């Protein structure tokens, strides 16, 4: 099932149709957080984020807090568990590729070998689709409102000369807090109740 789901999503992206991918996520308001990924898997994320979206021409993954956003996505209690599992599996499979190729964990590899693993992952049946998903994480971290603790100092917006719409979200109506509305079932009988 997962394979057909991700193949479909890749197809949508290829034809430019994808507008809303129901994925995971959540945002924690605190600046610090406990990483859900192991040190080794974080190294994979950093390396691949750096390759997919380097920091010479654009704000890199550190300036947009992409690792934080990845962590938020992986710990979203409202997210589709299959999506989270798929995203996590990519890190696991990447490390397996490192083991098969160099008999080492990914974090033990030098820059050249990490790039080699990236290229190997690209060639796998799951690789391009999974890397595309990492790019979606990067795009969200680059371009959603900084209230989500990403796009720091509006770095992404400034780079692309993007003007945000107004009003911008406040802390009471951001995802996932806005979903509290889905728990209210008290009948409304007058406009003053709104």
């Amino acid at each position, binding site marked *: *099932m997962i394979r*057909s*789901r991700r193949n*479909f999503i890749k197809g*949508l*992206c*290829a034809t430019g149709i*994808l*507008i*809303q*991918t*129901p*994925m995971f*996520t959540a945002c924690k308001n605190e600046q610090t957080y406990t990483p859900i990924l192991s040190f080794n898997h974080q190294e994979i994320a950093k390396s691949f984020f750096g*390759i*997919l*979206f*380097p920091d010479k*021409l*654009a704000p890199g993954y550190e300036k947009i807090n992409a690792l934080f956003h990845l962590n938020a996505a992986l710990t979203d209690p*409202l997210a*589709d*568990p*299959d999506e989270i599992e798929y995203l996590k599996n990519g890190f696991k499979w990447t490390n397996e590729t490192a083991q098969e190729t160099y008999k080492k964990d990914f974090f033990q590899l030098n820059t050249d070998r990490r790039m080699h693993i990236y290229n190997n992952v690209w060639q796998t049946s799951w690789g391009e689709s999974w*890397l*595309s998903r990492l*790019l*979606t994480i990067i795009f*969200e971290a*680059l*371009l*959603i*409102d900084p209230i*989500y603790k990403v796009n720091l100092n509006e770095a992404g917006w400034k*780079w*692309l000369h*993007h*003007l*945000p*719409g*107004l*009003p*911008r*979200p*406040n802390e009471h*109506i*951001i*995802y*996932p807090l806005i979903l509290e*509305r*889905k*728990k*209210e*079932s008290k*009948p*409304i*009988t*007058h*406009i003053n109740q*709104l």
Partner: protein
Amino acid sequence: MPKNPKYDVCVIGSGAGAGPVIYELSKAGFKVVVLEKGPWFRTADFSKDEMVATRRSVYTPNLKDEPQVIEELNEKGEWEAKSTYETGRDFWNGNCVGGSSNFMSGYFSRLKPSDFKLLSTYGKIEGANIADWPITYEDLEPYYEKVERIVGVSGKVVKHKFLEPRSTPDFPYPPLEENIVSSWIDQAASKLNIQTIPLPRAILSKPKGDRNACYYSNYCGSYGCSSDAKSSARVALLHDALRTGNCTIIPNAKVFNLQSDSKQVTGAQYYDTNGNIITVDAKIFVVAAQAVETSRLLLMSKNKHFPNGLANNNGQVGKNLIFSGGGVGGGDFLYDKLAPDLAKELAKPGVFVNRSIQDFYEITDKKTGKKIKGGTVDFLFEHANPVSKAIRQKWDDDGNLRYGNRLQKHLHHYFTNVRKLKFEIFVDWLPTDNCFVSLDDKVKDKWGDPVAKIRVGYHPHDLKVAEYISDKSKKILAEMGGENIYAGISGAPPNNLQAGGCRFGIDPKTSVLDKNCKAHELENLYITDGSFMPTGGSVTYTWTIYANSFRVASHLIDVIK
């Protein structure tokens, strides 16, 4: 029906098809209860937050909890059904008080007189279940006007060869402000002997009561409106209904069954947020849950009197589903190829394109020389959502993932030097035996109820008409100096523009509803969303859905009295 029901009318749903009934009956002094599946998002809950509006399932259900099943022809030519949870293809629209009208772009066009008699005007088409409507344009015109005035439509009437008859000379709200590109479209089309017309919008250009005028936020379609200028059922109708003291709206109330005896609906059962089952009784029941879910609810409501689903002893419920679509296209306009002052004007955010062409509403078939029904094309800018805009640039024309410096250069160029002008084509989606709603026998929702299975076949005639209009539209973009001009004509249904499934008609054997949108088989069941439409015209449906709901409301007031 209970002897003394608490409510006169129970309405299931609260969007464009429900709003006028709720508004009119509450104002007429009747007790109305509204059961809305989704939550109540207030105007203050809306911001221009892309995470909430398009990146997460906030305004729509989580697909794991509430999947649907889409059935399409596969490469082998066989019908293949897949859960939307499996594919990620979201077919839901706004599930909240006010429904998807909260998030519409509000491109509003009336149907034409010929749309009410498509069969008798243009004749049969093999493989299509075309039927004339049991009412005429003249019957609906007063209600189109009512929508302009009460719900709020802005625009300017310009004479053209397919202009529908009007009872008023012009719109009650003047046109919204336009981008310079609108004049470029006019000029290019004129050179090609094509007439453009201002596109009416369900957006206020000046204040109305508590509602403010549009402030040109640059984020309209898919977003809730922060000034209440957008004419959603919530702000245009439900607020006033509540002010009467006669209306009760219960959010997060998921109706799953309509109880009935052999003649009347006796109760609506819903799940509350805790999963409790609650039953509401009323004299009259009105269903307006949007076409797919309305058919699903009737099909789920089985009992000994209606073993195939409520009002479905003739087997017509769910049949002849239609969509408003045809294709999309567009072209790029590069700032660095324009004089600086023109580039600055083109880049101006917020103001609208609002151009439409209806010259092709009737066209000549090249093979037969006969007149056939054509369609409409609307022009618009690519939406401003930056994440979605970036995602569309991930893959190159060969289907390869862009990354690294190549991706960044492309993104920077696209965001800073390109403005994409798009067009959307609307043709009659011919009703066929291969476009319908049924219940899936395997996939259940989180309550354990069968989900809607939607077969989305289309008639090849639809594509032929869309191709014709697409060719004309691409020529306009080329005349304007557009680059990378493209078009995609397909039978892929737009999930947000759905109708049919419970068509109205005179013959109880071939239709679900009578001319007043009352079920043939029941005395007190009405359906007022787009389900009633046997054909859809060649425009978006929402204005017609609003207008018909006002029409049915007038009838209901007479009935209940």
